[in-house]
């Protein structure tokens, strides 16, 4: 234990972002952000809270109080697997999963996510592939993610890949929809 590593933990009001909570609460599904009574049901129900740096409850509290940097840079929001356990058990019926989505979007918007973090790489690769082809090929997607995050792992998973390929479960042929133009027009209309 190195006590010289002690860091300042206090937050001064000037370090908080008072607009942050307002931005989040206006997003779809986040309307009830301020109803939270910090009971911790979400943290208890969450199968992944055991691994999070901040439990979902703390993410909510920090969001409300404007600890924007800490929230957007926490990896809790990227660990959320969208299983909705928290949302269905919340006694105030807060859609915590949707709040996590809103925070992920915000982090991407502000470029505050860890670059080589597989979760965000996956999200972006997925996004690109669907925009281009309308569908997604799991084999290609996972290969890309591994290439961009930890290329060495490709060898580790090669055996699994080979097996899947022999079972006809992955292929390098990518499925493409016919009306790609239509889809792109729809998606571009939202930019």
């Amino acid at each position, binding site marked *: 234990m190195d006590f010289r590593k002690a860091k300042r933990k206090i937050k001064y009001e000037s370090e908080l972002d008072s607009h942050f909570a307002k931005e989040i609460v206006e*997003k*779809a*599904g986040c309307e009830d952000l301020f109803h939270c009574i910090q009971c911790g049901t979400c943290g208890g129900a969450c*199968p*992944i809270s055991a*691994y999070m740096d901040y439990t979902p409850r703390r993410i909510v509290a920090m969001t409300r109080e404007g600890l924007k940097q800490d929230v957007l840079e926490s990896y809790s929001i990227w*660990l959320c*697997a*969208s*299983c*909705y*356990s928290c*949302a*269905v058990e919340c006694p105030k019926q807060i*859609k915590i*999963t949707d709040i996590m*989505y*809103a925070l*992920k*979007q915000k982090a*991407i918007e502000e470029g505050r996510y860890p670059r080589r*973090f*597989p*979760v965000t790489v*996956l*999200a*972006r690769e*997925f*996004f690109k592939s*669907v925009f281009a082809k*309308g*569908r*997604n*090929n*799991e*084999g290609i997607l*996972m290969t890309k*993610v591994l290439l961009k995050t930890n290329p060495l792992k490709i060898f580790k998973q090669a055996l*699994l890949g080979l*097996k*899947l390929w022999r*079972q*006809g*479960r*992955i*292929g390098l042929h990518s*499925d493409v*929809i*016919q*009306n790609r133009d*239509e*889809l792109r*027009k*729809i*998606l*571009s*209309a*939202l930019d």
Partner: protein
Amino acid sequence: MRYLYYPGCSLKGTGRAYEESMLAVFQALDVLVEELPDWNCCGATAYMAVDELKAFALAARNLALAERMDTDTPPADLIAPCNACYLVLNKAQRYITENESIGNKIHTALAAGDMTYSGGVHVRHPLDILLHDIGVERIKTAVKKPLEGMRVACYYGCQIVRPYATFDDQYNPTSMNQLMWALGAETVDWPLKTRCCGGSLTGTIEELGHRLSFILVKEAINRGANIIATSCPLCHFNLECYQKQWQTRYHDDAHMAVAYFTQIMGMAFGIEEKRLGMRRLFVPPAYIAAVS
């Protein structure tokens, strides 16, 4: 009975066995299933994390296609076998119809592609169709080889009953159990039946994702199951494909057959293995031999 069918990307890839067995089972029950032409990716979890509106728009295009298709018997029932597709399509449906500002944006976006959607499609899971439209009695009559001795851990995963429990209980779903009973199988009391399998985390943060699926299989073994039935291609993949890697990772054996519930139904219906995609499984159900 005729339904529209939305496969989603996985049922054309890693989850091909699910598609094959589901179609075979529906055929055995004289149910017509027609694939939605030119469907696109549903939007899924990963997309939603980047841009929620676009995720809804992706889903909306599929819903609009479905609505356009089935003009003679509205409202159209659209089967979405993948849990994630099922959730995303349902969620999009809700937000588009219930949230005015999202609804308006999506309608404008669809219009840019010369499409419209009035909100009339019912997105349904095959479990729901089998149990409520076809019924246990009809299924019982189709059983040729009752699955005696099979002790199934029914795994629903998260996104069928959460957050929208429309056809089963949110905390203790039983629809799959009822189907298994109809086939002559037993089911085990397994409190993890809706616990998260780790989803895409198995591919991104392995340590975490693998542990989540590992403990599911481990507990299914403890509860005396000899097979896990799944209803989602991603859950299936997570529970099935990494079993070998767990041995080195956890120095603990968690070896168990994992099959789609439709494959198990097909076995009981006496459908040939090939049509059920059995050869695409890593751990072939040990009972195939015993039953057939």
